[in-house]
């Protein structure tokens, strides 16, 4: 998308959100940054991702509700709540699920199914029917509707999280066929699966061309495995080369996602040196964590996004994640550093409240 077009749409979306969302409108007014006074999309006030926990950030689509019934979100996507407990889950109201499909699928296809041909899709996730508030499950569901060959399925278990035996059986079927498959799961689910499979000596050699999407990290989880080690073990256990493992970087608060473009490039660098690419409708800024002023290319800072697909909520979102941009717009993700905060003998309230929940 040309930058002028992105800028024009961003301003239009900004105007709509200031008018339609009382909290966001008041916030922009309090900052003195309103439509017409902001010349560049980078100046549009960002809401912190944490605001999705406590504030109603539904804006609806432009023109919605005019003369009709009151607008309501078609769905509400919720964060996993691992960090602050279930009662503090972030809630992203989605004005249109069709818009979510339109925002998520083209970039998914480009980065995970560049050949645009059907293939079996195995998702170590609950189905969207089981967990309608999971944006990831929705996305996997759309992928199955678009490209899922027979045998595509969700493989979750309400107790253990992953339907281990179901995954094993499905992988055996895929292994016996001559068609590559796409596997989707969170890093945490993959670790669970690997532990189960390794304990029982299950190893697979999936057909050439198979690929794996991993996402989610380990935020707030008790077990963490370095990504390099996870990929090595996945390669050993599934027979999928590390160069065909793709990290998706997304968040419930954004309708759009970023991917490592390893499937469309020759040879993938090892995990940790890969680059995420954003779709053209997702703007990225890197800001100085201390001042929130823009940082130059190559400088690490806190990431902020302007997602035009968030038109029904708030598009400008400030995250806690760190990274830097290269001169070609590639995002080098650093993520959060667990335990990075200086530790004292004072317990952060978060710790107390987390423990009590």
């Amino acid at each position: 998308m040309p930058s002028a077009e992105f800028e024009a749409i961003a301003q239009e979306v900004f105007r709509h959100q200031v008018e339609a969302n009382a909290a966001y409108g008041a916030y922009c007014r309090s900052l003195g940054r309103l439509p017409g006074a902001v010349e560049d999309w980078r100046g549009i006030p960002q809401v912190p991702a944490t605001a999705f926990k406590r504030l109603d950030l539904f804006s609806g689509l432009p023109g919605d509700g005019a003369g009709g019934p009151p607008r309501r979100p078609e769905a509400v996507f919720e964060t996993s709540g691992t960090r602050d407990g279930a009662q503090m889950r972030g809630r992203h109201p989605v004005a249109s699920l069709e818009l979510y499909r339109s925002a998520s699928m083209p970039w998914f296809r480009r980065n995970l199914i560049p050949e645009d041909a059907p293939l079996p899709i195995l998702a170590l996730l609950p189905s969207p029917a089981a967990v309608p508030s999971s944006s990831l499950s929705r996305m996997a569901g759309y992928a199955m509707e678009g490209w899922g060959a027979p045998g595509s399925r969700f493989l979750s278990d309400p107790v253990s999280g992953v339907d281990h035996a179901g995954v094993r059986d499905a992988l055996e079927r895929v292994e016996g066929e001559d068609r590559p498959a796409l596997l989707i799961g969170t890093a945490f689910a993959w670790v669970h699966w690997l532990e189960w499979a390794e304990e029982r000596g299950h190893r697979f050699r999936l057909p050439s061309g198979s690929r794996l999407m991993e996402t989610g990290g380990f935020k707030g989880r008790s077990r963490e495995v370095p990504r390099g080690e996870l990929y090595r073990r996945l390669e050993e256990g599934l027979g999928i080369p590390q160069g065909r493992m793709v990290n998706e970087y997304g968040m419930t608060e954004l309708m759009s996602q970023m991917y490592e473009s390893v499937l469309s490039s020759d040879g993938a660098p090892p995990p940790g040196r890969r680059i995420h690419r954003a779709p053209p409708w997702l703007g990225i800024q890197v800001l100085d964590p201390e001042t929130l002023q823009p940082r130059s290319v190559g400088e690490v800072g806190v990431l902020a996004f302007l997602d035009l697909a968030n038109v029904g909520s708030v598009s400008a979102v400030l995250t806690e994640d760190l990274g830097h941009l290269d001169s070609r717009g590639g995002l080098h993700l650093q993520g959060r550093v667990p335990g990075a905060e200086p530790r004292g003998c004072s317990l952060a309230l978060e710790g107390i409240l987390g423990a009590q929940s």
Partner: protein
Amino acid sequence: MNTPGVDPAAIKATLARLSETRSGLRARSAREIADALGRVGERLGDPEDGLAREAAAAVTRESGLSPEMTGRVVRGMARDWTRERLRELLAREFADPAVLDGFVDDPRGGRRLHVVGDPVAVHIGSGSVPGVSATSMVRSLMVKTPVLIKPGSGDRALTEAFHRGLEEVAPELAASAAVRYWPASDRASLEAALAAAARVVVYGSDSVAREIRALVPAHLPVVVYHHRLSVAVVGAGVCAAGDGPTMLDALARAACTFDQRGCVSPHRVFLLGIGPDRAREIGEALAEAMEREARVAPVGERPGAAVAGLQQRRAEARMRAAVDPAVGVWSSPDASWTVVLDPESGGAAEGHLRTLTLVPVADRRALFERLRPLSAHLQSVGVAGVEDPQALSEGLADLGVTRIVPLEELPFPPAWWMHDGAGPLRALSRWVEWTP
């Protein structure tokens, strides 16, 4: 990274060597030990002393505190390591400190009493508050227990400096203490240390305390100083008395000392019986005090990820302030300090980043209700300008608070403070009664 040469075998050997020094340690009088330790403390408290200068430079490098804050912290800690303060500690803990040197008559008659330490103790520190482990070493030696100190990763420099000073002042006494560092991931070294200890003292999070308790045999005494939280309570008197700015400067100083990492650092400030307009005025005045404090003792280094989290909380508070006139936010242009006025504050995360949240409460009852969910971790409460401080203190005591002090005394408790509810020397010793 471990102290060079530290491994399970070396730790075992060190503990064996420390145990051998016990008889020599017991032969010294408690007063003599306190004086030797006090001479080291006095050197560290003298900014012109080479040991103090060396320690300050090392602490700054290690802790991430600014040089100005390091100076305040080292001076503040050393204030309570002097001969005068340690003698006072002995006197406050034991009516007759000679009870540490042998049996003395119970003043009420009928028996003789003696306080004894242990053959050898292991003190496990964690975190990055300078001075915690040096204080722990002082306490153990004062009850005549040889001690292996494992400081927190950010508390090595001052502990090692104290021990170096002790080697110069009283080498025989220094031989009863050893400072060794190993990271939390080195389970073998931890287990080797715990296996040979007669008493274990743990500073750290609830999970660290739980883990260490599980590794220690049931018969062994374990003293746990788990993570704590401190708050302030400010009443309407802080304004009426005309001493508002002074009190708020003390509050800002208490919050910023240790860059808010201390268990004595306040995070929330309850405005008792103060209306919305006055609460906002206090917020503005406190913001000015935080800025003054930032100029006197600038904030130290913080990882970008921690500051990014702070920016989330700031921005969220600003959004809420835009729609709720009861909410206010004041902050530095950079991330040095933040003051939030938020009557609904409850679930928001707050870190160690010079952030104070003002919470207006109608009365004591409402205050106690707000504090109750935190009671298991409450420690110090700084108080200023409240009516009926007696009733407030009794209510706080019921909630689990162990220290109630004026705001200016929050950051540096005296050597004899009731650390988490118990005398610091009595917690490390046992009484023996002898009825002749």
